[in-house]
């Protein structure tokens, strides 16, 4: 039997049972020895209880999605067992805590089932938290990992300079052993996981929100305020810990209305200012974003999308804020939007967003989703030097300056320097005083939209673009779509690929290319098919592949749905 190249394990139970820790620990351990990893977490918006699950994919090649079917399912309670068992692949292994519940007799024949009283076993090591170690030991055994992978990880992770380090490490090691023994006894195996093939570049292991944080700092962010909200809170917390030093400011605001107004104030005095939020907070920023657009003040908002509308599904994944991101407020405006598709892209997206804000002098939106922001993944170590850091044009002349003259970006005076003017959210004349004369409104409107041209020359990915039908995912759906695309290539399905994280403005050349396609399929996690609608506005024959379950796409579903569209277009079966 050839070695497996990839496996997926899911931990399912109730909030507070340590499932997220387990999958992140497994990911960290696997990454340390050179595997590619990706976790996925989903939990209810609450502290305790509620159906939670977390999974970890470990792969010899880079992981593009979190994995459709499970090789191992660890069920922490009966409900979890019932809900998730269908996703266990044929030949997969179920692990459950036999001290907590019993698997129905009738199921026992159909699955590889390992009753593992890991709570008890964990406690028997002397470290009550070692239950996870018992599980990890068993899992490692199923894929015939060298013992030393996890043993090394244990030593590294738990040698934290605390007095009881040695005890904890020893207990954990015992837990690992107990797990291995139980797995070995069960007689089940997933075969051997192929040895890791560590990439030849440096890597880090990180969450999406942390990647945003690093990218923003790399681009010179020096002002951040935010109000807690899932799944964006960790950006605020990251900033509280890391945005420090001379000339920086970070603060928890009293609401999102305050956040947006405050970063506009900071942008006005020359700071590179940002906030982060999720849907409900983003809605509250509507008026403030219009203000920044009208006043031409640089600032960045990261909206980590969750399920909507309203309070919605705070800890689920959805891509349904695109309309709002582009047109968040009353009146004519179109905000620049960058939606990264991978954790690596999160880093550069933040850099570009801050650059864009400085370059076109206005608000920029970064869209993320729960699935992208909260998962852990190994990525190539980001290289800030790949994106040149930009600073706005600052006015350095004498007083009597017309800040708003002309039809494109003009140097911005900063308080404390020359060129005093009124930054005005009413329509204004060239010095910033209020006016309602038609000539100024026409000039102002065209100036504001004209500046978007400075952001149009953006890169996009293309593959096999000579096909009639192409797919063009956006944001975090890039990963599953990418994997689906590769599957379809293997299957011989004639389909092309487009992708860009620069959603607004869309590169006109990209639009030209898309307009020539018979059909552009847009996998996106929303009901309205928001990006495809926007493409149709631009004359592209686009159609969405939608999903609105609160969960990311499964690769197999995408393969099936895209293939069906290609076949419908071709009028016959395609591929293998």
């Amino acid at each position, binding site marked *: 039997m050839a070695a497996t190249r990839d496996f997926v394990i899911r931990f399912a139970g109730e909030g507070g049972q340590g499932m997220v820790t387990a999958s992140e620990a497994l990911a*960290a351990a696997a990454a*340390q020895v050179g595997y590619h990893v990706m976790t996925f977490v989903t939990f209810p918006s609450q502290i305790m209880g509620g159906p939670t699950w977390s999974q970890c994919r470990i792969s010899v090649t880079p992981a593009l999605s979190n994995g459709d079917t499970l090789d191992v399912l660890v069920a922490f309670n009966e409900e979890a067992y019932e809900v998730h068992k269908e996703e266990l692949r044929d030949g997969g292994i179920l692990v459950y805590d036999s001290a907590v519940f019993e698997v129905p007799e009738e199921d026992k024949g159909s699955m590889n089932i390992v009753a593992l009283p890991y709570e008890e076993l964990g406690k028997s090591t002397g470290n009550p938290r070692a239950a996870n170690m018992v599980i990890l030991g068993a899992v490692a055994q199923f894929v015939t990992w060298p013992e030393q992978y996890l043993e090394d990880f244990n030593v*590294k992770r738990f040698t934290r300079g605390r007095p009881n380090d040695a005890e904890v490490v020893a207990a954990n090691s015992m837990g690992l052993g107990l797990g291995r023994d139980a797995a070995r006894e069960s007689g089940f195996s997933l075969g051997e996981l192929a040895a890791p093939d560590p990439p030849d570049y440096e*890597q*880090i*292991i990180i969450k999406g929100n942390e990647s945003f944080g*690093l990218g923003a*700092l*790399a681009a010179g962010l020096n*002002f951040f*305020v935010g109000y807690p909200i899932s799944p964006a809170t960790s950006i605020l917390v990251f900033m509280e810990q*890391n945005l*420090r*030093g*001379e000339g*920086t*400011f970070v*603060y928890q*605001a*009293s*609401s999102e*209305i*305050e*956040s947006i*107004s*405050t*970063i*506009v*104030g*900071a*942008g*006005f*005095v*020359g*700071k590179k200012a940002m906030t982060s939020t999720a849907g409900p907070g983003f809605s509250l920023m509507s008026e*403030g974003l*219009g*203000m920044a657009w009208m*006043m031409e003040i640089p600032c960045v908002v990261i909206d980590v999308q969750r399920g909507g509308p309203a309070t919605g599904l705070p800890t689920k994944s959805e891509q349904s804020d695109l309309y709002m991101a582009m047109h968040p407020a009353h009146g004519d405006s179109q905000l620049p939007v960058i939606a990264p598709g991978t954790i690596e892209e999160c880093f550069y997206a933040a850099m570009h967003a801050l650059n864009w804000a400085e370059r076109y002098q206005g608000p920029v939106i970064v869209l993320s989703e729960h699935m992208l922001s909260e998962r852990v993944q*190994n990525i190539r*170590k*980001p290289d*800030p030097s790949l994106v040149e850091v930009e600073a706005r044009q600052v006015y350095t002349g004498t*007083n009597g300056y017309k800040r708003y003259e002309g039809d494109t970006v003009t140097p911005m005076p900063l*308080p*404390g320097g*020359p060129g*005093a*003017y*009124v*930054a*005005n*959210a*009413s329509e204004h*004349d060239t*010095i*910033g*005083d*209020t*006016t309602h004369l038609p000539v100024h409104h026409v000039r102002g409107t065209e100036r504001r939209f004209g500046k978007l041209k400075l952001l149009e020359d953006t890169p996009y990915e293309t593959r096999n673009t000579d096909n009639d039908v192409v797919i063009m995912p956006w944001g975090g759906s890039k990963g599953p779509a990418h994997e689906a695309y590769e599957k379809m290539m293997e299957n011989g399905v004639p389909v092309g690929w487009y992708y860009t994280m620069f959603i607004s403005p869309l590169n006109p050349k990209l639009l030209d290319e898309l307009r020539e396609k018979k059909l552009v399929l847009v996998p996106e996690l929303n009901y309205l098919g928001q990006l495809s609608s926007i493409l149709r506005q631009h004359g592209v024959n686009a159609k969405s592949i939608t999903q609105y379950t609160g969960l990311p796409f499964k690769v197999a579903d995408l393969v099936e749905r895209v293939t069906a569209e290609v076949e419908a277009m071709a009028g016959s079966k395609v591929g293998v």
Partner: protein
Amino acid sequence: MTKRNPEYDFKWCPGCGDFGVKRAIELTIAARTTEMDIPFENNVIVAGIGCSGNLVHLTDGPQPFGFHGIHGRTLPVAFGIKSGNPDLEVMVVAGDGDFLSIGAEHIGPAAQRNLNVTCVIMDNGVYGLTKGQSSPTTQFGVVTSTTPGGKIEGEVKPFQYYLSLGASFVASAFSSKPREMAQMIREGMDYPGFSIVHVQSPCTTYNDNYDVLRGNAKKGIDPLTYDVPESHDPTDFREALRIAQDPGIPLGVLYAADNPEPLDERYASLNSRLRSRDVDQMIESFAIQ
């Protein structure tokens, strides 16, 4: 029309109290800038939306930086400005509607932070710019276009309100006494913390209460305003609160907390205490070891 911008065509109505406020602000900024050797361009005025907020376009003489945004958000904007550049001298100018109705939520946080900005609030007891609706400071029982049967909501008592929210410096002025007002604004600006100069600034078009404020012997009207007694110790919070609760409108500095530390200083000392790393170090901290 202003000297600054002959094309600008907004005008306050004749007799509007805001003229006096403008004068007091111009005088104070000019004098303070010169005396204290502050670069003029360090002055920033953040304006609310209302007749009052239009002040930012109307000041004569050298032009400070101005920020004229959306209704009710002067304080969060000022927070961003002052925290973004603590060297700036930040003043907020707003009306009773802008500051105490739609913007009310922001006063508490500014006070608790002791944000070092000075607010000059033009209270005319009415929404002027939208033509005469009731405002938070419109008195109970008063008829306006939106309270045709008389207002049935109690009025906000601004001084009590500011004090209870924790504002460090609270003064009360009257547009007809611009010199005294200028003095209070000056004290507020020199004060290291969140300072409010709340000005009675009558709206001659929709709520002409000059007579009520300064009294009119001929009509037998006693003045509502009176001077805060010389003997008042402005560092005495309870006494300030008592004055604020008593009937009538006291003019003068009601409260000036002793020796407060403004947010920018608090923040600077906090920030210097906390670890700061460069980006490469931070990226490195996520390395797979």
